[in-house]
């Protein structure tokens, strides 16, 4: 293959792999922001928390971070339930979610980040995995396993959540909350309870995504900020509350970022997601698959 073709093919592959990971990162926001109307800007904080939990267990016991995160996801689920309960009692119930609720999540994001800095410092942490240094090669085309494994697991997670939402009673209740809370109440279902569990699910996916993150790259507490714009960009780009939209949005963003870092340099990559977000908000706020 010619040099430039190989470059493009590699950029496409890297972009798709990255996009799969972004889908896992944004899945939770797609549930909490897209369906439940809870603007959880602290979502990236839980991703970083997931990274550090995976790091600690990997560092002490040498277990695979992704397996660890799946096993420990009930912990994040419980954390999510507790957080939603506080949010509901303090803000949603009083009708103050728009301003004070946002400030609350911003504070949570901040506290988590600073606490992690105080405990672990600002050094980059990484994990050791069996596949971390393995790369499959076919001619000039690379397929690094540290991107491919998270990609596969994250696709499985996204599809699993979508099936769960469309094929179970509880999942349909979540979709119903997104459409009409009053109607749900009239059907005898408590929307607050449904939202609590769905929000907990969103935090659990954040914990798992955190493990993907630390497999893909070294992590330090403040990189969470870069993901705030990213998750909302994916969610808005794909269309609010659509899981398939989130997947497509994430792949588009992954490709855009990969091409930007290949052809303009990696230092421009962080601006891509935010630029895309601003452009989507300005020109098509309902997103690609928006209702």
């Amino acid at each position: 293959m010619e040099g430039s073709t190989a470059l493009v093919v590699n950029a496409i592959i890297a972009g798709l792999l990255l996009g799969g990971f972004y889908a896992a990162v944004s899945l939770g926001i797609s549930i909490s922001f897209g369906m439940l109307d809870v603007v959880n800007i602290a979502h990236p904080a839980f991703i970083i928390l997931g990274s550090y939990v995976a790091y600690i267990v990997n560092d002490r016991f040498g277990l695979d971070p992704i397996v660890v995160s799946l096993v420990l996801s009930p912990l994040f689920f419980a954390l999510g339930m507790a957080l939603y309960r506080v949010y509901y009692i303090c803000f949603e119930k009083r009708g103050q979610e728009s301003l004070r609720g946002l400030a609350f999540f911003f504070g949570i994001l901040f506290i988590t980040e600073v606490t992690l800095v105080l405990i672990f410092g600002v050094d980059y942490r990484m994990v050791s995995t069996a596949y971390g240094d393995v790369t499959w090669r076919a001619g000039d085309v690379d397929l690094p396993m540290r991107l491919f494994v998270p990609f596969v697991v994250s696709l499985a997670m996204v599809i699993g959540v979508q099936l769960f939402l469309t094929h179970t009673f509880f999942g349909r209740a979540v979709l119903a909350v997104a459409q009409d809370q009053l109607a749900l109440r009239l059907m005898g279902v408590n929307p607050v309870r449904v939202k609590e569990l769905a929000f907990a699910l969103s935090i659990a996916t954040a914990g798992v995504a955190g493990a993907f993150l630390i497999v893909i790259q070294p992590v330090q507490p403040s990189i969470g900020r870069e993901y705030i714009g990213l998750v909302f960009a994916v969610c808005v780009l794909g269309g609010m509350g659509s899981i398939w939209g989130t997947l497509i949005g994430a792949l588009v963003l992954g490709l855009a970022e990969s091409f930007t870092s290949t052809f303009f340099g990696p230092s421009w990559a962080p601006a891509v997601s935010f630029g895309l977000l601003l452009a989507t908000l300005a020109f098509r706020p309902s997103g690609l698959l928006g209702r």
Partner: protein
Amino acid sequence: MSNRSFALVAFAFAVAFAAASQLIPNEYFFTAAYTVLQFVILATAWNILGGYTGYVNFGSAAFFAIGAYSTVVLYNAFKAPLPVMIVAGTLVAGLAGLGLGYLTLRLRGVFFAIASLALSVVLFTFIVNWDYVGGARGAYVLQPREVPFGLPRYIHLLYVVMVLQAAVALVVARAIEKSTIGRGLAAIRDDELAAECSGVPTLRLKIFSTMVSCALMGMAGTTFPYYLSFIEPSSAFSLSYAVNSIAMPLIGGMMSWIGPLIGAILLGSVQQLVQVMFSLGAWNLLIVGALLVLFVTLAPNGIMGWVETWRRRKGH
């Protein structure tokens, strides 16, 4: 009190305060007071949009940095005099606010909040890649050797400028609050749909208050490069500005101009004290974050909210 007499009182007070504090022999006072005043301006500016209108701006750091970097550009280009830099930074930040508002204020309030966060990362990346203003390495902006008005050091001048800027911010905030514009903004905050139906020009008012708020934030940043003599993207875009300018009005109280002032003086001084006693920046931020969450959950109307309840109880 009418706007004019309030402005007179505010500026007389500012001048007297600035003059009196020149007697303080301790250099550190000026360095510390500069930071607190910076927060007074940021908090007051944030509150014009956040408190009066109910729209959350997470991008305070971005507008602050616009002010700071417009100074760097003018310094590199023609060593422009300080007043020119202040005016230019204020205008550029105001224009940026106008643009952001025009793009996103038609949508739900959340989108404005997210877009403001996005803006700070886009600008950060832009500045990091812009070599003319120093890029990621940062740039030196040296203080002039001669200090005007017979002040002993340049930091004294910067301090006086900051006191006056704080007075400007407070006068503007109070004027907006007491005017018909302020009542329109309050109507938007309480129920935007009802306001729109009653003939309040909601979009125009929102864009106006965003523009004023962002311009004042930019103004706060214009002297910052001189204050440090060296500016780099991570100090100009520090998250501390974003979180402080939200925490301070929320803790002080968002309904009137006095809340952010109280919050900024209180929280700003506490942070300076912690810095001096423990010299740990991270603890500082943890305190601010924890106070923000505590106040927002337990005392949503802030310190002025307490004062109001106490007054009402006494009245009965």
